[in-house]
């Protein structure tokens, strides 16, 4: 009896195995949480587009070791409650092996307890430094830390012998995280923050703040925000005839900003991922191939320029793809392999994770660019 049963089980296993090899294996499910609508849609939309484009591409090329990828995208609307619900759904209902996103630091912080408990690897596309500091076992991220962008600007300011600056930051997650870093790092570079002003994400007139800044005696203005606020700032600076040099964050490194700010954008300096200056990069730049490829592809698919926000999703998908190729598709194996990622040249920079570092980038992930003639020039 027992023998018969055993035989049956074994033969069924064999049949199953053969079926597995002759028929298509079930797809590998990857979850994605992006703020496609709501106040952070400028992040979520290019991220979703990029992720869908990449997964299509991978599947067209035969998938990962013959298995297709299936991407399940939910919109968080940049709302922590919705992010947690969607993360739970991805894990419990859809049974994904890994999650990419969310787009914002707030959403990411909200779902970290969920993924840590479920032991599902998360590759966040948000920039906040606290996502990976301290290191959480299951959480990685692709967006460059704000700290790196701030260091880039301050380094440059120091070389220009500018010691007194005014900062003008937006009062949302992006701006407050940037402001934190600006204040924290100023001392290290011998820079003094003379005026510290903020504006609301929907504000349409910043002349009051700028008038105050003008009378404060700063040598430069650093504005930290995402479209459209900084465009208003640039226009107001021009309107008020303020002659101080204007620095911005990587939050506006897209052609959209140049379009919105118009002539007022000329001369502004900002740290940016390499994606906007892909053409100007030297041939030996390790990222150049991926960058050009991504820019072309995105333009072909969506008729608009790809930006580095979409790039965060590109990196997340490619990192997970690499991990699955090396170690299989169990969540634990993906996590372990992600941690072993070394010198992956993506859109945001060259990633090397380790058990002490789940952010994976160094300050060379940013280049300084200046806006000239409605385009970007690389600043040495």
């Amino acid at each position: 009896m027992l023998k018969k049963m055993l035989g049956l089980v074994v033969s069924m296993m064999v049949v199953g195995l053969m079926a597995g090899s002759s028929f298509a294996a079930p797809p590998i499910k990857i979850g994605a949480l992006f703020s496609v609508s709501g106040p952070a849609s400028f992040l979520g939309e290019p991220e979703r587009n990029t992720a869908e484009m990449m997964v299509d591409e991978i599947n067209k090329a035969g998938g990962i070791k013959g298995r297709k990828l299936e991407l399940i995208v939910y919109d968080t609307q940049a709302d922590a409650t919705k992010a947690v619900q969607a993360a739970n759904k991805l894990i419990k209902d859809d049974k994904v092996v890994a999650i990419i996103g969310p787009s914002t630091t707030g959403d990411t912080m909200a779902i970290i307890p969920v993924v840590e408990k479920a032991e599902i690897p998360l590759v966040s596309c948000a920039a906040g430094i606290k996502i990976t500091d301290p290191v959480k076992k299951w959480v990685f991220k692709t967006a460059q830390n704000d700290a790196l962008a701030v260091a880039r600007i301050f380094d440059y300011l120091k070389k220009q012998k500018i010691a007194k600056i005014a900062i003008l930051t937006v009062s949302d997650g992006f701006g407050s995280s940037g402001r934190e870093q600006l204040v924290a790092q100023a001392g290290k570079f011998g820079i003094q923050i003379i005026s510290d002003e903020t504006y609301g994400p929907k504000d349409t007139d910043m002349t009051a703040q700028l008038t105050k800044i003008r009378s404060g005696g700063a040598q430069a203005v650093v504005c930290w925000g995402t479209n459209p606020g900084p465009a208003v700032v640039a226009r107001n600076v021009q309107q008020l005839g303020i002659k101080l040099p204007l620095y911005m964050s990587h939050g506006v490194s897209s052609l959209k900003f140049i379009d919105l700010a118009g002539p007022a954008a000329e001369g502004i300096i900002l740290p940016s991922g390499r994606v906007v200056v892909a053409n100007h990069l030297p041939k030996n730049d390790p990222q150049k191939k991926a960058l050009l490829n991504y820019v072309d592809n995105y333009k072909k698919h969506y008729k608009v320029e790809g930006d580095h926000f979409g790039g965060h999703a590109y990196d997340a998908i490619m990192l997970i793809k690499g991990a699955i190729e090396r170690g299989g598709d169990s969540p634990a194996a993906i996590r372990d392999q992600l941690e072993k990622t070394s010198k992956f040249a993506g859109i945001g920079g060259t990633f090397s994770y380790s058990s002490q570092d789940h952010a994976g980038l160094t300050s060379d992930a940013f280049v300084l660019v200046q806006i000239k003639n409605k385009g970007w020039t690389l600043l040495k």
Partner: protein
Amino acid sequence: MDNSPQLFQYVLSGLSNGAIYALIGFGFAIIYNATGIINFAQGEFVMLGGMLTLFFLVFLSFPLIPAIVLAILISTVIGIAFERLAIRPLKNATPLSMVIITIGASILIRGIAMLIWGKDTHAVPAFSGNDPLYIAGATILPQHIWIFAITLLIIAANKIFFNYSIVGKAMRACAYNSQAASLVGINVKTMVLLSFVISSAIGSMAGIIIAPLTMTSFDVGIMLGLKGFCAVIIGGMSSGLGTIMGGLLLGLLESLGAGYISASYKDAIAFIILLLILFVRPEGLFKQKETERV
């Protein structure tokens, strides 16, 4: 250091924002006075004005004047449709149901605008350039002059309409007492519809003249609508001088508050003023006590 240019700049910026608040507040007041409804969708007409102008001007490359005229016309048609479809069929309207319906309409209009024009913010070219004008050490843009001029024009036109034309007088009669008005042969329903027409036209005009300054996107209507409402409350719901003063005062206090107190709490300042006025003087700062609507 001499602080007077700084103060003057705050005042100028405040007044130009205030003129916009007043214009938006105007739209609220006209509908409220004719119907007793606070139209929470008023801000969306401001958005429509800006987005439609952008659409004709930039996407379809129309010249400026036809683009503006078309934008106002289409906004007005949407205003009429809104009144016909959602306001007129309503029987036994309570303030609560009116609040919900107008909020629902604002969500709907915003949603449709998002689907048609996307989520991006767009720049709209200024009517006459971006070279700043210097006045006593402070600067404004030519667009600000347009804003002041058009606001004045609309106010004057309103004054004449409501005080001297038969239709305007009839609308005022409805505002005071709609039953009595209908007894003397005024078609109240037409007057209500007319109030929506005027109000959506003025709202979209406000959106058109500020778009070159503030840029425009599908969701600019919410905050602008609320600020316009604050203006009209300060002004005591009048469709005259009170709202103008209310708007200018609000803009001024916001700008001075952002300059001398804290820019982070700029919006809070507007709403604290709103609450204080509602608590202390709900009839508004500038209105003489007159008949109260019950």
